[in-house]
């Protein structure tokens, strides 16, 4: 009935570590975070767009939420909510394009919450979230056109992208916008790193909530993630050291 115990045990332990840290911070613990340049640049980018009197652009990519890469899009939409909050404080408009219909529904909800929190619920306009279509390149074509037509001042591409990311990022850069991007999709990271002013690498996109809200839930979860990464790195290094001495215990255990 149970195929293998190792993944289950590891899965439950991981969940336990994360939820344990969330609990710990919720009951008053602290966990100071190091700085991430790309996240520090967010406020700066919104500020610059405001100075230029141009809108801020955001898109969370083409992936659907109901897939195993969906959490990248969720992370992207979460970041959008903080960007929108900040932009509303500055009185700057946010334009978002959306490729996937589920993401569209989410984005609409998230933006309403964000503007309410910023104290400007009246800023929300459904026309500023543009659904284009899940057809990849049609989404890209529509997006680059909107970037140019609206003369955007800052561009955020954070979420789950496919081949269209480069076209959009390059168009934004040529428009003169500051480009902040991020994804955990390995196939797109090389392009985004090369073309953007700032790029959130892999896991960093899942950390935005903790940096912007500082809520115990998101910071606690980040602390739990840190523990798991320390363990993962130690397993790789320690397992290999043991393997060098012909002890393959760790490798065998993981293969079970």
């Amino acid at each position, binding site marked *: 009935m149970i195929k293998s115990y190792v993944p289950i045990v590891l899965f439950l332990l991981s969940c336990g570590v994360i939820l344990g840290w969330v609990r710990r911070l919720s009951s008053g613990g602290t966990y100071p975070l190091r700085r991430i340049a790309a996240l520090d640049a967010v406020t700066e980018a919104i500020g610059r767009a405001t100075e230029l009197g141009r809108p801020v652009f955001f898109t969370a990519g083409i992936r659907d939420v109901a897939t*195993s890469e*969906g959490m990248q899009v969720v992370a992207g939409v979460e970041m959008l909510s903080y960007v929108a909050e900040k932009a509303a404080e500055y009185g700057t408009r946010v334009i978002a394009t959306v490729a996937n219909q589920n993401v569209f529904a989410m984005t609409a909800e998230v933006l309403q919450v964000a503007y309410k929190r910023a104290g400007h619920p009246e800023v929300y306009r459904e026309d500023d979230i543009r659904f284009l279509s899940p057809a990849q390149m049609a989404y890209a*074509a*529509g997006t680059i056109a909107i970037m140019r037509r609206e003369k955007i001042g800052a561009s955020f591409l954070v979420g789950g992208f496919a081949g269209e990311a480069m076209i959009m990022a390059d168009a934004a850069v040529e428009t003169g916008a500051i480009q902040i991007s991020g994804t955990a999709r390995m196939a797109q990271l090389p392009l985004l790193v*090369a073309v953007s002013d700032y790029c959130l690498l*892999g896991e960093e996109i899942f950390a935005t909530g903790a940096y912007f809200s500082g809520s115990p839930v998101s910071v606690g979860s980040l602390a739990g993630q840190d523990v798991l990464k320390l363990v993962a*790195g130690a*397993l790789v290094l320690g397992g290999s050291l043991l393997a*060098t001495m012909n002890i393959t215990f760790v490798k065998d255990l993981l293969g079970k």
Partner: protein
Amino acid sequence: MSSSFSVWTTALLTLGVYSFLIGYNPVFAIVEHLFVGIGAGYMAAIGLQNIVKQGFTPLTNGNAWLVVPIALGIMIYARYSRPVAWLSRYPIAIVVAVGSALTISGTIQAQFIAQIQDTIVPLTSFSNIVLVVGTATTIWYFYFGTLKSKAAQQSYEWISVAARATMMMAFGAGYTGILAGNIARMVGIIRQLFGEWLHFIK
């Protein structure tokens, strides 16, 4: 030069897209609106086919459970009427829940355990050392907490140098891979334009 209507359509639309390289212009605007329209229409039709094929047809064949997702699907439209707008929370919550369940169950095995296991190799060659150290430092690079002791901070500095070097080489290699695909596509387009359309390439 070709006399086929289809070849001309393809060629002109391709040139229309390329006009963006000069700058945003009315021709590109036309092509862009056409494309967004076609794309949305295509995807809408596929979506409707899905509703019929996976929803209504099996439902009429006796799978009564499908009433639930169909009802949930209709509930999404509650957002247009304020008093019942909360109904649309159900379908979104469920779709996102399916995504998160797929993520958390799939990643631990495929992305976590399998990848760690594959990286455990005896440190008997330069390549293996680079592989192991590169992987471990890259994982540790994403440590988000602050470090208290001076020694820990210094070792993090070194870890981050090794990690960034590894990642950047990976990005360089990845860049090439993406480039290769684009060269192949571009060759295809040039063949289309200068071969099929203008007959310059035999």
